[in-house]
């Protein structure tokens, strides 16, 4: 429980930072999507149940602050979490580069699935793609910069909360 709450607290910090950046970038019509960061650390390093609950809470947090059907982020994050969790034994988890690659791939998948689920609302769906691709490129660049810091933040938060990294919750 403590592990899940500590992870959720770091997700609130992440949400705040991304929301503030998006606020500042609104005038330039650029939007950062960092869905993978809500999932990656918990899926790569944490026990199954506690990590999944943290990802679900992160999904609900994003759902509550977006104009989508409630549960869209939650279910997407759950699927992403389970998929990353399944392959985590095959990637070097403590390596920054591999963590960044996992985050980038997960974010790409989440972004595309999310876009396909939302694009039907637009009056000209085909015309929206250039904007979405620009947003995706910016988001991926942002993730490259921020992933090592955010992973370190989550690890340090758990350490401060005296939660051992791989202990079953």
């Amino acid at each position: 429980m403590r592990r899940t709450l500590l992870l959720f607290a770091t997700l609130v910090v992440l949400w705040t930072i991304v929301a503030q950046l998006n606020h500042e970038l609104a005038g330039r019509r650029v939007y950062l999507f960092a869905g993978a960061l809500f999932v990656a650390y918990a899926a790569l390093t944490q026990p199954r149940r506690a990590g999944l609950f943290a990802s679900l809470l992160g999904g609900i947090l994003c759902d509550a602050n977006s104009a989508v059907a409630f549960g869209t982020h939650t279910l997407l994050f759950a699927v992403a979490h389970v998929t990353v969790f399944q392959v985590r034994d095959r990637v070097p988890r403590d390596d920054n580069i591999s963590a960044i690659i996992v985050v980038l791939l997960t974010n790409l998948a989440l972004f595309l699935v999310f876009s396909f689920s939302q694009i039907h609302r637009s009056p000209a769906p085909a015309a929206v793609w250039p904007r979405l691709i620009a947003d995706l490129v910016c988001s991926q660049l942002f993730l490259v910069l921020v992933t090592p810091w955010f992973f370190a933040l989550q690890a340090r938060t758990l350490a401060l909360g005296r939660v051992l990294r791989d202990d079953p919750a």
Partner: protein
Amino acid sequence: MFKRFDQARPFVTLLIVVVAWLLVPTTLKTFARASFFELTAPVTVAADYARVLREYWSLRLHSQDELIQAGRDLARLNASFEFGVQQNSELMAEIARLESLLRLPSFHDYRYEHARVARRDFSGWWQRIVIRKGRNFGIPIGAPVIFSGGVVGRVTEVHASTAVVELMSSPNVRLAGVVEGDALGRPMSFQGGVNATLAPPTGVVEFVPLDVHAPRKLVTSGFGGVFPPGLTLGMIVRAEMGSDGLFNSGEVKLDERLGSLTEVTVLVPLGQQEAVSDKR
């Protein structure tokens, strides 16, 4: 057998989560959504207060000469606005006189609630803002929101001290508009559209009469009773024959300032407010 089940265990957990989510009653989901929004609302509002403080300190850096000049400019503006207010009250009196003479139904009355924008959220999928006033100021769902450049959008969610406004550039917003100066007042359908990167927001307009050519100013029609008539929506910059051959379809360029709003005005319908207070 057990090893294979162990490998599939995360997916079984996922299946359980999905089934549990589907079985959760809507009331509980609505409650969870509102709770999580309220959880983040203080963060949003605190960030905005920090922004106000930053602006204040940056303004403190201005020299006295600049402040004197700004004061002089404001005095000029005030003088012209005072004249405008006088003209407005005369026109209002004239409208009231004509309404009583011709026995016309009167326009909706609104209370103007000015609110600061706490958060802007402009993705390719939706565009919305969070304002720093909610139930505590009697903001109702569906209330129109305007700014000096025309229509901003419509209130879609109201929380304890904040409210969410869906912007007119969002594909989720549809409303009826008319071309300014069209004597026949022929309505057309406006919908938020594509918001390209580093470009002004746009919308699309359908059912444009064939004799209406770009560029023309599109304003609210007043039909439906939500938005008062005559508020600026945008400029029709392109109108082409639609696929049915009966109407044109076109593109509307919206105000560029929609992406950098800091203050907006919510029009709270007075009749509705009175009805709410009567119920209480």
